[in-house]
């Protein structure tokens, strides 16, 4: 090239100057574990499905959701959403309404008739699931997806377990439950109703099963001794709720005393109210000590359920009971005060917890039962090889969500066991705490409140109390997600790099660093809204 006077070099590009050599620390992309996912007992990838809901792709969102949980419409109604308690957005304004979006997706799937994706090729293995409650259905679903043949044996007349015979209709309409159960059966899962297993080992042999998952639940109401005359009607809460599903509704009279402070006590009281009775809950401790969720207590009070805190039943007589007032001692335990009071009562319903019917396990070698529940190893297998157990019959918190999580976990271990392997869960990512986020970038947006049924209809009918979101506010609610710890392609790193050292790979493909030029200033890390980049020291 002919150069002008006094010019000795050709003009060149600064690209020859690799400024990456200046770096003492490098940025790296990573996925952190969002607190919602971390808190979900069913192990849902909540951030993952919200990501698709944010762009309005509800079907894809539902598909990501059901990879872990086959019952989103049920879950969106009955789950106590520990995800929302853990949500980072709560520290900004209010938690994302994950539960309401989940319900919207579940309802949308039923409305549009979405089916599960095809299962894996058949493995030729056959698994017996005992009990068609949430953990049994969840295990059956996951096992079927993995290509195993699954038969569910259910002692009751209908599928659903406690979702049908424990949770009242006003919280979970039965057509929702039926639709989600049917979708699982459509995968080829065989459901045998009114089939009580008497001896598990005999049933395994007779049916040619390779493994079993036991999920019989806890259906026997706990009793306590109350001195009572012959005329007093004392029943347990589980049988009251169960008989609500049959032809013969329970005969409890007008004034019904419910003894206990858990969610079941509240469910019975609200059911009695809807049947025209006058329920009174008697509980020996205070409201803040009651195991029932506070919103359920609040809704019950709104509907006119009376609650006597700090009281125990001393005696039940004809048409009335005697209660003793309690006082909390310094350690917070209720102590009798010697002060008595009479309450009019036509019947007493005991809601003191439930026990497991373990009769099917009699004589099985290696099984360990402690405190009335079956002991399982971390892989959900009982002491007897090939027999796994989950749900309310093993030691755990007794909720539908935990049960669904057990079903999934057990299915993974059963699948590995059938192949003679051990399932090793992938290592957990580090947690995306609030401090890892740059919340400046998120729009201010308050939580969408779900509509509630009017009070009069709540007191007199079994119509569903809590309404759902429509498409508009479901989209809004999904978009409140901060996407903690997981890139949502906001382009901030690509934009804020003063050195053009971030390569944008295109929609869905995220980004890459160009370490030839990255000087390691850390701007991308500081300005990443969701904490999906970290600085790592270079070896110098």
């Amino acid at each position: 090239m002919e150069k002008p006077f006094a010019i000795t070099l050709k003009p060149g590009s600064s690209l020859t100057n690799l400024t990456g050599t200046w770096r003492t620390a490098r940025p790296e992309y990573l996925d952190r574990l969002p607190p919602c996912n971390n808190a979900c007992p069913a192990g849902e990838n909540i951030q993952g499905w919200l990501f698709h809901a944010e762009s309005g792709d509800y079907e894809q969102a539902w598909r990501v959701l059901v990879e872990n949980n086959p019952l989103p419409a049920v879950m969106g109604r009955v789950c106590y959403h520990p995800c929302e308690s853990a949500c980072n957005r709560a520290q900004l304004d209010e938690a994302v309404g994950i539960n309401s979006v989940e319900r919207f997706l579940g309802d949308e799937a039923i409305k549009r008739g979405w089916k599960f994706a095809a299962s894996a090729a058949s493995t030729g293995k056959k698994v017996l699931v005992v009990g068609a409650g949430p953990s049994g259905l969840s295990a059956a679903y996951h096992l079927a997806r993995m290509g195993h043949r699954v038969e569910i044996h259910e002692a009751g007349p209908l599928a659903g377990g406690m979702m049908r015979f424990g949770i009242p209709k006003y919280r979970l309409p039965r057509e929702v439950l039926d639709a989600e159960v049917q979708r699982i059966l459509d995968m080829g899962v065989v459901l045998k109703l009114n089939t009580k297993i008497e001896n598990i080992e005999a049933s395994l042999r007779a049916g040619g099963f390779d493994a079993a998952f036991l999920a019989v639940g806890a259906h026997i109401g706990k009793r306590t001794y109350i001195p009572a005359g012959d005329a007093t009607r004392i029943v347990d809460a589980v049988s009251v709720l169960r008989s609500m599903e049959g032809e013969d509704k329970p005969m409890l009279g007008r004034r019904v005393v419910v003894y206990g402070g858990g969610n079941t006590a509240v469910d019975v009281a609200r059911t009695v109210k809807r049947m025209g009775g006058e329920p009174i809950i008697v509980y020996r401790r205070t409201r803040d000590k009651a195991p029932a969720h506070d919103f359920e207590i609040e809704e019950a009070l709104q509907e006119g359920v009376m609650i006597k805190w700090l009281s125990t039943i001393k005696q039940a007589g004809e048409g009335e009971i005697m209660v003793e007032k309690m006082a909390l001692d310094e350690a917070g335990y209720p102590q009798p005060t010697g002060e008595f009071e009479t309450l009019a009562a036509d019947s007493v319903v005991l809601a003191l917890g439930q026990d497991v019917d373990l009769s099917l396990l009699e004589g099985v070698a290696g099984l360990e039962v402690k405190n009335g529940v079956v002991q399982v190893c971390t892989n959900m297998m009982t002491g007897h090889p090939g027999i796994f157990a989950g749900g309310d019959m093993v030691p755990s918190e007794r909720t539908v969500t935990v049960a669904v999580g057990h079903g999934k976990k057990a299915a993974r271990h059963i699948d590995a066991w059938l192949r003679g392997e051990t399932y090793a869960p992938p290592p957990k990512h580090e947690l995306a705490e609030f401090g890892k986020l740059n919340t400046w970038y998120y729009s201010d947006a308050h939580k969408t409140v779900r509509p509630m049924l009017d009070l009069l209809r709540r007191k007199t009918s079994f119509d569903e109390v809590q309404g759902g979101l429509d498409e508009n506010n479901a989209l809004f609610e999904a978009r409140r997600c901060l996407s903690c710890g997981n890139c949502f392609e906001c382009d901030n790193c690509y934009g804020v790099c003063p050195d053009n050292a971030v390569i944008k790979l295109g929609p869905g493909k995220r980004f890459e660093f160009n370490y030839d030029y990255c000087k390691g200033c850390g701007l991308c890390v500081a300005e990443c809204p969701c904490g999906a980049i970290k600085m790592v020291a270079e070896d110098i």
Partner: protein
Amino acid sequence: MSFQPVKFYQTGTFTVGNRLLAPDERSVQANQQRSNAINSGHRACQGCGEALGARYAIDAAMAASGGKLIAANATGCLEVFSTPYPESSWQLPWIHSLFGNAAAVATGIAAALKVKGRQDVRVVAQGGDGGTTDIGFGCLSGMFERNDDVLYICYDNQGYMNTGVQRSSATPPAARTATTMPLGPEPGNVFGQGKNVPEIAMAHGIPYVATATVADLRDLEYKVNKAMSLHGARYLHVFVPCPLGWGTASHDTIRMARLAKETGMFPVFEAEHGEVTGVLKIRHRLPVEEYLKPQRRFAHLFGKQPHHETIARLQAIADRNIRKYGLLDEEGK
């Protein structure tokens, strides 16, 4: 009508990009095909606000002019770090002459294009605060006064950083520089008006004057676009924090710009023909200490005996900006 942020869609227009916005609502910087006017390999410090501000502004101007753009550059960091002979980071026709004459050179280019009948090619001039508010001020005022068809962009990092952090007429009061040491009864730079070039530019009555920061990309791009849609003399003053001169961490550059705006220390506004037509409101108002404390150039205010009086005088400057430009919205948040 000033820039209207989109508040929903998760991050709205607060982030550089947003997959939930329609393609025509997205930023130039989010585009894979952005021109990268100042390319990788330049020798700016880690976390340089000026390198970032220059790419934001020139990429937007390139997009607005369909890539037909010529730049004249004053002496300063931007020139030195981008074009050490024989390399250049610039991916557009670019000329450097002297420290003080960028506006005059741009005027000449605009005049030449006019003579040649090239209405399709646009001209920008750019420089730091030294080359704009001090050394190039005469040429700049002339360019305004003649209403030459040039967009002049000043990248304000509040001092002569390239030569070792000396004071300029854009250095804020109380700030430490090599020439305003924190000594004596009134340490750091003197209190006074300094030279507020955006307001001086407005006094010339030119078609468009605006301020922006590297913390509000969408607002900056909107202003470049607006400026490029007009002809005549236009002035854009971009606030670009300097990790070296201010003594801040290299990863805090954007945060410092955000804090300058949120405290009211740097008012972000636009004006047409000498009248303010819009301001970027403060989103979460903060006291000036939040902005001052992370900067070593203000460290002498926060020693064992904090200079409460000096901090109060700086707060008064911020309060005056907030009042004067109406930086808070009606609710007074």
